[in-house]
Structure formats: C-alpha cells, structure tokens
C-alpha cells in the first residue's frame, strides 16, 4: 500500500499533499493508472504553484483511483486501501494522520467529496473556472475542478484563498471582474427529497444533524421536491465518459504512456498497450464514452446530455432564487465495503447521483460533517461559513 511518497521529511504546519492527478515536475504523476506509471511531467500544476509560492510545502503525492473517476480511490494501480473493512482515500488518510494540513486534489467524479464525507473531513470544490486547471491530468474538462480537502473549514478557506486565480494559461478561467461573489449570509437552505430516498440510516442522521445545527443557528431548512437535479447523474455520466474517452486517447503507447512489449504493427501497438495498462472501470468508461460520441448516437445521446446540462443549470438558477444553498448527501452510505465494490463494479455510476449535480453545473460544493452543501456560483465564502456551523454542531463520524 502506497499512500504517498515523501520527498523529504518536512516538519512544517503548512504541508500540502497533492493527489496523483496534479502534475508535478519533481515527482511522477501516474493518475492512478499503470498507463502513466513513472510519468514525470514537464510542467507543474498552477494551483500547486500558488500554494508553494504562498509558503506551503509539498509533502508528497497521494495515490488516486484510475483517472479519479471511481468512488474513493479503490481503482488505483497500487490497489485499494481498506480500513476497518471500508475503502478509504489516500489523501484522507494522510490528513487524518495529521501528516499534512491540506490536500490538493482533482474532483472529476466526486471521489474527493465522498472521501471527505466518509472520513469526517472538509472538502471544497470551488466554482468551475475560479481555479486554474493548468497542470492537472484532464479527464472530463467541462467539470474537472481543482479541489481541496482538509480537517476543517478553516484550513480549506486558507488554501482556497491562495489557489483562486485567473490564469491566462487556462482559457476557461473566469476573469476576476466577472466573479460576482455572494457575500450575504445563508438564510434559507433546501433539502431535496428525491436525493434522500436511497441513503442509509447513517447518512440520514448526518443530514438530520446538519439540518438541526443550521436551524439552531437561525437558518431556515425546507424540504422540497425537484426532479431536474436528479437528471444530473445520467447526463454527467454521458458527458464525463465521452470527455474521458477523448482525453485518454492520447495514451496510445506512441508519444507517452505504457507501451506494450509485444506487438506487430501500429494497430496492435495501440490495442495491446491500452489493453495491458487500463483497468476495468476505465475501459468501461472509454467504451461507453466512445459509444455516446459515435455518429449514430451523438444527437440522441451526447447532444441531449449537453442540452440537459443547460436545463439543470437553469433549474439550479431557479432554486437559488428562493434558496441560498442546498443541503444534500455526498454518498448513499458512509462505508463502501470490499464486498460491495466486488459485487457492484459499476457502483460509482449510481453513487454520483449526489456529486454529479455540482459537477455538471460547475457550482461550488462543500463537504463538512458528512454532508454536502451546494450553492450558487461564487458563494464559497458563505458556504464555508454555513459549513462551519455544521462542523461545530453537526454529527462527528
């Protein structure tokens, strides 16, 4: 089991670990895949650069699930990490062991948020376009967001203030002048009933505890019904797999990536290299993504998912006319057991029911006290204030 590689022993209260989706020029970046085993990038992550420039020290890299699309990191080339029978995330372990104060991660499909929720940590997925994606392994570029994980909201807030930038090297960064920051405190929070249907008792308790803490603090918590937000899951699975399929097509064994030793001809070189180096979940995503983009399916599937995304964004906008934030689960259960993972390899494509809404809409989402808060664009600051209330009053798992 390899949690992370330490460059040198650092005794510092500002140690940051970066997950293996964040490119570094001194350490290899493998994206959790055999495909990129030992790959050392020529460029480093912009966000990590911001942190080190601000005095954070890079302690090492933490392993991730292959291309960060899995539940909590269990598909890593270095194997899943189990603690007390439940799968845990490497960055979360490092934070819980107090070996770093913050982890810089790439949120592709919610693994960071699920890991934080299940480990009682805080995570921030900022508004899409407020942190540079330059120097991160691209997976689903329209949703990939450089995120943070820490033991508490305070550490997350400190690091977030450092990594927010408008990087000219990332054309999707939103100019500072267009960031309409929300400063009014959160007063009304909605719980979406349909998202509560399939969660287990423990998750239910976490939501109830959070709602109680908010109510105690004078915040109105109202349960509503909304069917549009739930369409995020299938739409996001389509968009994510399609973009992933395209982004990992560069790993063909020619310019970089694992190259099979035995092949005859260029087609076999491609096929053998990819067959050998990619894991099952990734292969499934590639095949699904390839299918959704094919000429026969593009209009029926991919284009429809893009249109659905627009509808979802509008539904969120309408919700945030009435509410300041949404309180929702980050996962259906607080533990993924080895048995569950073995029996339901496609579990992540169901579990992202809770993470896909913020991924597909690019909205900020904060995990604290085992639950997730989503808010309108640029509301990270007030969301963190709200999360801090839950952190203090909410159930500690």
């Amino acid at each position, binding site marked *: 089991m390899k949690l992370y590689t330490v460059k040198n022993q650092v005794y510092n209260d500002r140690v940051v670990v970066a997950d293996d989706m964040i490119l570094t020029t001194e350490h290899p970046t493998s994206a959790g895949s055999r495909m990129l085993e030992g790959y050392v990038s020529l460029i480093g992550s912009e966000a990590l650069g911001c942190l080190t420039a601000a005095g954070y020290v890079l302690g090492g890299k933490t392993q991730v699930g292959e291309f960060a699309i899995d539940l909590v990191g269990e598909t890593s080339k270095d194997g899943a990490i189990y603690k007390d029978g439940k799968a845990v995330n490497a960055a979360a372990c490092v934070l819980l062991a107090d070996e770093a104060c913050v982890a810089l991660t790439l949120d592709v499909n919610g693994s960071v948020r699920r890991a934080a929720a299940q480990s009682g940590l805080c995570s921030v997925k900022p508004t899409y376009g407020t942190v540079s994606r330059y120097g991160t*392994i691209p997976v689903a570029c329209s949703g990939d967001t450089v995120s943070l994980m820490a033991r508490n909201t305070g550490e997350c807030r400190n690091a977030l203030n450092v990594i927010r930038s408008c990087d000219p090297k990332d*054309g999707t960064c939103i100019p500072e002048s267009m960031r309409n920051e929300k400063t009014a405190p959160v007063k009304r929070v909605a719980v979406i009933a349909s998202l509560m249907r399939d969660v287990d008792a423990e998750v239910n308790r976490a939501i109830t505890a959070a709602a109680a803490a908010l109510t105690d603090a004078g915040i109105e918590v109202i349960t509503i019904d909304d069917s549009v937000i739930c369409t995020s899951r299938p739409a996001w699975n389509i968009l994510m797999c399609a973009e992933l399929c395209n982004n990992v*097509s560069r790993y063909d064994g020619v310019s970089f990536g694992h190259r099979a030793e035995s092949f005859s001809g*260029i087609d076999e070189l491609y096929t053998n290299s990819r067959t050998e180096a990619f894991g099952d979940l990734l292969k499934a995503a590639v095949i699904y993504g390839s299918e959704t983009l094919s000429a026969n399916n593009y209009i029926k599937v991919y284009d429809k998912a893009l249109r659905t995304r627009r509808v979802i964004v509008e539904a969120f906008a309408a919700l945030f006319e009435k509410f300041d934030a949404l309180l929702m689960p980050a996962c259906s259960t607080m533990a993924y057991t080895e048995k569950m993972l073995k029996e339901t390899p496609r579990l992540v494509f169901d579990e992202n029911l809770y993470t896909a809404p913020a991924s597909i809409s690019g909205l900020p989402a904060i995990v604290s006290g085992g639950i997730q808060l989503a808010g309108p664009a640029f509301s990270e600051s007030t969301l963190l204030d709200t999360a801090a209330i839950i952190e203090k009053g909410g159930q500690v798992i």
Partner: protein
Amino acid sequence: MRYETVIGLEVHVGLSTNSKIFCSCSAQSYGAKPNTHICPACCGMPGMLPVVNRRVVDFSMKAGMMLNCTINRVTTFDKKSYYYPDLPASYQTTQWFAPIAVNGFVEIETSAGKKSIRIKQIHMEEDAGKLIHDIREDTTHIDFNRSSVPLIEIVSQSDLSSAEEAEAYLERLNILLRFAKVSECEMAHGTMRCDVNLSVRPEGSDKLGVRTEMKNMNSIEAIKRAIEYETARHIDALENGTEVLIQETRRWDDLSGKSYAMRGKETAGDYRYFPDPNVMPVVIDDAWLNAVRDSLPEFPEVKRKRYIDELGLNDYDADQLIKSIALCECFESAYAVCKSAKDAVNWMTSEVMSELNARDMTYDMLSVNGETLGKLILLVSDGEVGRANGRKILSAMFEDKNIDPKTYAEQNDMIVSHDTELIEQTVRTIVASNQKAVADYKRGKEKAFMALFGQCMRELKGNCDPQTLKTILAEYIADL
C-alpha cells in the same frame, strides 16, 4: 453517352501567423531541424490547455472575406478523434459545428467562360506532425514542428466540372489569399494542400454518381492529372462495367499516374466530433469585424483596372504587377515618390523581377522598400546615377533594406560626373589604344563605335551621361 464530372475541392491552407494556433511556438518552421519548435502543448501532453491565437482568427476572417463568405459571429472549436502517430493527443482541434466563415463564392475564368464557384465553409484547425520513415533502420520518427500550426480548410460546393476549372479555382484561391497575406499558398511547402471529391453522371442527370475522394496530390499539375484519371476511371466503370464504384478514399500516386483505394483503417469512418470544452466560443463583435474588414487589400482586379485607367499602364504590365501583392505595394510606393508610373513599372517588371529571379525568390518575398526604390528611380531618371549602377544599387537594397540610394551611390563612386574634361581625357586614352576599332568605325562599322563607347563608359565606372559621352566620342573621332 456523354458524361459530366462533378467536383468539389477541400483545400487546406497553412496560415502565415508567427505562432501556432493554441501555443506560442513558432508556426513558421518549414525546413527547420525536427522537433525544434515544440512545447508540451503542441506535443499533446496532459495538463496543457489550448489558448486561441487571436491572429489565427484575424487571418481566417480575412480569408473568409476575400472569398465573399459570411463570418459567423460566434464561432466554436470541436475535437475530432482519430488515432495516428503524428497526432500526439489522438484528437485534432478543429471546427465542426460553427465554422468561422460560410456561404461564399469565387469567380473563375476558363476557356469555357466565367463561372462562380460557391464556398460551403471555411474552418480553422490545427495541423498534425509529420512522420519520417527511415528505410535503412526500418523505423519511423515523428517531427512535431508542424503540430498545431494553424490551418484553414476551404470547402467548396461541388460546382467544378473539369480539371481546368479546378486549376482556375485553385489559382484564384492562391492569388486572393496571398493578396490578403494570410498564407504563402505554396504547394511545395505544404502550405496549400488539396483533396478532390469527384463523381460522374450522365450529362443532364440531376442524380449524383458514386463519389470518391482523392488525397496526396502535391502540385496543381498532379491535381489535374488525378482528376482526369479518376474521371476516366469512373466513366469506364459506368460504360464498360470494368469495376463497381464505391464511395471511398483513394490515394493518388503521381509516379504511376493512378489512384489506389486506401485501406479501410487509413480512412477512419467515425471521428466522434464534439465541442471542445477547453476553448470558449469566440465572439466576434462589430469592432473586431470592422477592423479586419478595414485591413483587407484592394482586390487584384480593382488594382489592375486602376493601374490601367488612372496610371496609364498597359495590360501586360498591369497583369505582371497583380501577380503579387508585394509587387503591387512596392510599385505603388515607388510611384508615390518618383511620380512616374511608367518609370516605376519599368523598374518593377525588368530590374526588380529579374533580381528576384536571379535570387530564386518568389514575388511575395520581395522586401525592398518601395519608397527607397522610388528614390533610386529618381536618381537614375535625373541622370545622377547611371542605369547600370542603379541596378547595382537595387541589388544592394535586396541585401540591406536600410540603404539610402544617394548615400550608397556617393560612397561607392557611382555619381554621374558632369566634368567634360574628364570625359574628353578618357576618350583620348581609349581611342589612342584602340586604333583598330577607330579604323573599323571609320570604314562604316557601327558596332565598333559602340565598343569604344562601352570601353569609355567602363573606364568612367558608368558615372557619365551616355548622351554627353556619345557626342564627345563622335566629335573626337570625326576630328581625327
């Protein structure tokens, strides 16, 4: 039965921008050592994000306007996926859903008369790298210098019906794009490449025949031969049933003069286009559009007409000039200084063009400053510098753009002398040592006089008014 050929062309044009389409590497690396103009972005490495080069959009808009297209005010980039070793990211960023320019046309003229060829669309995209096969080592190397060099693809409607029309169309594109300075359009350098879509049907039929696409023609001559070959092949198949035509991509082989079907694998069927989430839509506002429109050159025909009607040039000279915008610009600024269109065009079509030819330069490569040329023309026409020395000064101007003709002439002893004493002395010396020539001339051999004249001129280093020399020489010999 009589047949007609239906042809559409897809023309790729390499833009002359300094840098590549999504990174700041040089885009002008033709002939450079392999992999000397590359960076992580154009090598498709993970973590790099594309940032659109604004000049590429400028140039593409210009091209669209030159070809009478409508400019799409919101234009977007898409990803096109296929596996090939020269494509490092295994996808090409191109435009599929909202190309920069649509619905244009160009006028061509052939032996059959004038015709308008419609342009379906122009889209921006990145070029791929280049594979270099090493036969000795039985291995293949990849040169990424060309990777991400900006291209536009100009897609015509199927309005062409012969090799002659295709040639006229390509030459028309060539001149218009070179006039707008968006590309050198040099087929030999790969900055202009052309794929041919062709089908054949009975004359008058409104149903299209089976269409084939041909690639790999490296010259206009090859394109013409390929069209003629493919037309004959289609007709043969229709008339004699020699083969069954299928929709396919074929490779032209110029050596054998035949086209061959490409293997299925070489012609990916499904490119899985989808919008590139990393490139925001480019929105072209009025100010941007107008700025590009204002930068368009006068069209070649307009220039030609103006040269003839207003400046009194003859048809031939005007045609010579409009072969290149560089010639036109040089001519126009030279004329503005020397005020004689006749002198200016004479210098352009004789001295300047022969100097370009001697240096193996294309007309577009002319970098001589037109104003300086105008000054030189004045020096010569005012008799301050002899014509032959004028030519030498022009040659020096090709080497050094900053030369001032007058200063250069002074420094190099090229100023015409009006000292008749010096001329008379030279004449005396030359005549004295060339008695045979003098005798020949006196016997009526005109050539002998010119030989003596030439020797005197050489002795004077050309710095002498020819008329004065002629008079003095003739008088001196007559007086002998």
